[in-house]
Structure formats: C-alpha cells, structure tokens
C-alpha cells in the first residue's frame, strides 16, 4: 500500500489545493481509492477530532479540514466502490417551530457533514408536519431537533409525537439539543439521544446509526 502519511499531514495543514494535488498524485501513482480514503483522509479527520477534543484545534480549523476532505472525496468518488461512497447516514435537522436560533444547529449540521453524513438542513421555525414530510421524502435515518428557548421545548415533544403519529417513528432515531434541554428532557419526551455540543452531536449521530 502506498504511503499515505503525507495525505494525513497535508489534510491537517488545512490547504485545500495541496490536498487535492496530493490525492491526485496518489491516484496517478496507482494508489487504491479506498486506501486513500481510509488511511489518508479518514485517518486525518480522526486526528482532527482528537485535536479538537484536546483543545489544540479550533472550530474554524476543524471545519476547514472537513471541507477540504469533502472536496478531496469528490475527486476520489469515481475510484471508490459503490457502497463506500454512500454516506454514513442521512440526517434531517431543523430548529423547531417558534424558534429562530440557528447558529448552534448549523454548527451541528456542519460537524455531521464533516463526519461523512448527508445532512438536510431545514432551517428555523420548522413545524412538526414539515419534519414529517421531509423524513418521508428523504428516507432519513436521523432527525435532529434544536431549540434554544424554554418556550419552544414543548414543540420538540409535539414534533416527536407527530413523527410517531405518522408511523415513521421506527424508521428514525431522534436526537435533540440546544441550551435549555438536557438528557433528562430527552428521555422524558421520548427522544433517542441528547448531545451538549456540536462535536458530541456528530459522534452521537454516528452511534445512533451504527
């Protein structure tokens, strides 16, 4: 197998053009697409994750690495077998009805994308019916609900109830987050999980579909 440590190193360096050039060079040199993905890019992103946890890398740097990785994956796609190209889970995410806060939710969406998931970001002020319709349409496995207001926490429960009533509850895992909610509340309203921040949200999403 080709030495892919340089891909890892360049990924960590954060320069997109260099990364793409290196991936291309490896392909030209006959390296296997799957190896470049697993031993180069994914290995690099694992290190990025560790560095974020340890406080050595900051959010904008993490997002930059993730975006560069996605660009590199685009180049790899023709060289990957079908099944490894498919995303590790499809997520429908939105801020519940009555709530306009979206900074945290968008961060969660970005981190999930970085983790290789397909994310459908509905936006803010999303009614239960809109979530239901999107789950049906997209066949998502995860629904992520965000609320920052105490007054909109109840809307999370209503959304979960609507998903149950529509008969889709068994198809999806539901996770919630946002400043006023916590693990207890998640259990109380019948969600499958809660995460306090974007990094752990992406990890939780991966666990839920594993």
């Amino acid at each position, binding site marked *: 197998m080709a030495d892919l440590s340089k891909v890892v190193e360049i990924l960590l360096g954060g320069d997109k053009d260099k990364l793409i050039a290196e991936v291309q060079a490896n392909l030209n040199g006959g390296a296997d697409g799957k190896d470049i993905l697993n031993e180069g890019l994914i290995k690099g992103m694992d290190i990025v994750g560790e560095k974020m946890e340890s*406080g050595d890398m*900051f*959010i*904008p740097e993490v997002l930059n690495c993730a975006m560069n990785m996605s660009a590199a994956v685009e180049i790899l796609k023709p060289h990957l077998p079908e099944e490894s190209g498919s995303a590790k889970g499809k997520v429908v995410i939105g801020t519940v009805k009555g709530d*306009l806060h979206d*900074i*945290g939710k968008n*961060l969660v969406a970005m981190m999930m994308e970085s983790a290789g998931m397909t994310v459908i970001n509905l936006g803010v002020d999303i009614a239960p019916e809109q979530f239901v319709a999107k789950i049906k349409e997209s066949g998502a496995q995860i629904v992520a609900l965000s609320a920052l207001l*105490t*007054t*909109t926490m*109840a809307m999370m429960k209503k959304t979960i109830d609507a998903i149950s009533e529509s008969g889709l509850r068994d198809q999806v895992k539901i996770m919630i987050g946002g*400043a*006023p909610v916590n693990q207890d509340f998640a259990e109380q309203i019948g969600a499958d999980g809660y995460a306090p*921040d*974007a990094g752990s949200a992406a990890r939780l999403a991966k666990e839920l579909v594993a």
Partner: protein
Amino acid sequence: MFANFTQITPRMRVLSDSQIKEIHLGACDILERTGSLIHNEEARNLLYSHGAVVENNGLVRIPSYLVDRALNTVPERFVLCDRDGNRAYRMETGKTHFSPLVDNIDIIDPQTRQRRKFVAADAARMAKIMDYTRHMDVVQVGAFAADLPPEIVDRVNIREMMLHQRKAISFSPSGPDALLDVIEMASIIAGGREQLKMNPYMMKLGEPISPLVHDDHAIKELMICAEHRMPIVYYPIPMGGATAPATSAGLLAQSHAESLAGLVIHQLTNPGAPFLYGGVATVMDMKSTVCVYGGPELYLQCAALSDIATYFHLPFWGTAGCTDTKALDTQGAAEIGMSCLLAVLTGANLVHDVALLDQASLVDPTTVLFCDEVIDHVKHFMRGIQVTDETLAIDVIDSVGAGGNYLIQKHTLQNFRSFWQPTYFTRPAMGVSEAHDLIKALNEKVIDIEENYEVPPLDPDKVAALQELEKKWLKG
C-alpha cells in the same frame, strides 16, 4: 479659578471620528449593496414607497439617503420614568443607568445557594431586590418561568414587576399581540396613553438576526413601538467569526448596518419616536462555541459602538456586569468589575445584562447586590475631580505646613464624608486574620431584604385596572 470650566468627567474613546466615518460608510454600502432580508411585508412596502429597492425574496436595498433622514429625525435623547411617574432615567449624554435581567431559565435560590429552575414565585422575590438596590434603574423582563404557560409568562412577569417594585421596566414580549397588551398595562401605570408617550415607563427589546436578517415579529413590534412612541432598543448580537466577520471593524460595520435598517423602518413609521442604539458586539469562543459574555473583544467592540452612537447623537445601550462563569466566583467578579467600569467610561446610557451568569441563562440575587456595589464604586469614580479654591485647599496646606497632619483640620471634617464608603465590600484593619466571606454576607442581605424590606404598594385603582385588563390575556 479658571480650570473648573473645563472639568473632565472620565471618558474613554476607542475610535477616532474618521474611523467612525469609515465604518458608517461601510455600513451604508452594506445596506445598499448586500441588502437586508426583511421578513415583513408592511415594512418592505414602506421602504419601497420611500425609494428602497425590494427584491422578490424579501431582500431590501436601502439607499443612503434614507439612513441620513432617519439619523436626522431620531431624537438624541429620551427619558424613562419610574412607576410613580418621576422622570428618573435619562438616556442622554453623561448619564449611565444599569439594567439587570430579573428572570431567566435558572436562578440560584438564596435559601439553599443551589441552582434550580426559575418559577413564577421568583419574580416577586427578584422585584423586591431590584427595588432595594441603589443602581439597578431599569428591570429587564426576559419572560421566563418554568411553571407558567409560555404564551403568557411575559405579561405575568411584567405584572409582578409592576406590583412589587418601582423602577422602569424593559421587556421582550412573546409577540405583537402581547406587545399591545403590555402597552395597555403600561398606560394604566402611566395614567393614560398620552401620558405614557410623554412619560414612558417601559421600553421594549427587539433584535435583528445577524447577519442582516429582520424577522417578521421583530419588525412588526418595532413598528408598533414607533406608532405608540414606546422606546425600543433594536440591537443585534453579532458573534465575530460565526455571524459576523472575525475582524472588529467588519463586525462593527455589519452591526451598524443591522441597527440602521431597524432605525430606518422605525423612523419612517413615526419620525421622532424614541430609539436606543446598541449591540452585543461579541465573538464566538472557537473552542466551546459559546457566545462570549465576558472578554476583551466584547468590551472593545461595545465601546466602539458607543463611540458610533455618540458621533450620531444617539443614546446607547451597553452590555456589562455579566460573566461566562457559572457562579459569582473570582473570574466572575473580575469580568463584572472590568465591564462595568468600561461601560461607564465609554458613555453607555443604559447598560443591560447586569448580573447574568452562565451564558445569560442564570440569575442570582446575590450577584445583583454584588453588582450594585461595583456600580456604586464605579459611579464614584465617574464624578471626576472638581478644582475650586475650596478643593485645591492651598490655604489649608499652608496652615498645616510641612510635617503636620490633616486629621484634626476643619477642612477634613467638612470633606471626608465624600470619600467612598463601601456598603458590602470590606476594608478590614491590618492584623485581622479572618478573611471576609463577601458572598455569604451578600446572600444574608438578600434574605434580609426578602424578609424585612417592604415595597410601597401600587395604587389600588391601578391594581384593579390591571386585574380587569388581565381577564383579556390571562385566558389566552
């Protein structure tokens, strides 16, 4: 004496006039070029009829002359009254008032010193503390109580503030209809609609959504306030690196553009209606992703906004006295102290978020008293130095002479009482080894106020009128 004609009250600036001008021109360009998303049809139509360009998706490009016009019609000052109608709180040059949030998601219970959910009964308890303080001039109602229906918690908490304390009130209503109810409530206290216009007792909080978005309800409420001449602060919370540029100048230009868009709509709706300019100009912490409530960028960028407000003769809404920690600890005390001093030095007129802990999610009556002491300290400093024959005291110095002492001077007797004396802080004599537990003492004071302090009741006719009005919204 000639010097006292130019007494300088301590005042700090962080932007030069030419820097302010550049930021302002940048903001005008943002409004014309990038545009603002205004999710309210009435406002879009109003802007369109005055020459703004409106695109199909709700993007509005506001030409600079509308900005100039709004800056010309907005009043330089307004005055807020207390419950008794005294014109006590002046939003004008040289005056700084402080405003803590009285309700929140959680509260530190003074009896247990433990954190728990804020419930309806806590509103009256906080009101009493507010009334008691020396420097909390405007109570800010956020509309929280875990045990009340979300649709009415705003008006319930406002009613509690009307009943149990006498300072002016600022508030975030749950929507435009609720705002109309609150205006009626305020009219009862002020003694009528016209009275309320001339002697405003309440002020509304509203927020654009950075970057450059204006929500339907926020704009509707902005226009209602303009029509009723109820003072409003329409302030963005730009977070550098997340919802605004990571550089201060760019963040300020965007923040200014967001405020100006609101101001233009407000002044077109009713020229001359009172408007407070402001912004929580902060950054995102790029490790934890929290919105920073205590830190040098927040202080500096808010100081810069204050300079911009001063340049355009607008009253300014500051942010200080809050901290990122989860309890009034050493870091909290440092952040509260620094920010309060900076807020007055930069000339903010109404400083909000005082005494807020843990990402603006936690209130603590003990921290309110702590802030009251810090502000007392700071306000003393702000008196500056008066130079007169009496204060220069050359004759006294001469009569004491080299090697004398001042303790028995009549001049000392006449003047030492104006030294600042701490109320809660201590200055123990040397040799006292036991350290004073300030937080414990403040907490005891809180309990003492709760048990023993009486707030004069609201006029029974007004109470009855509020109760009558309540029938309308309480069932809602």
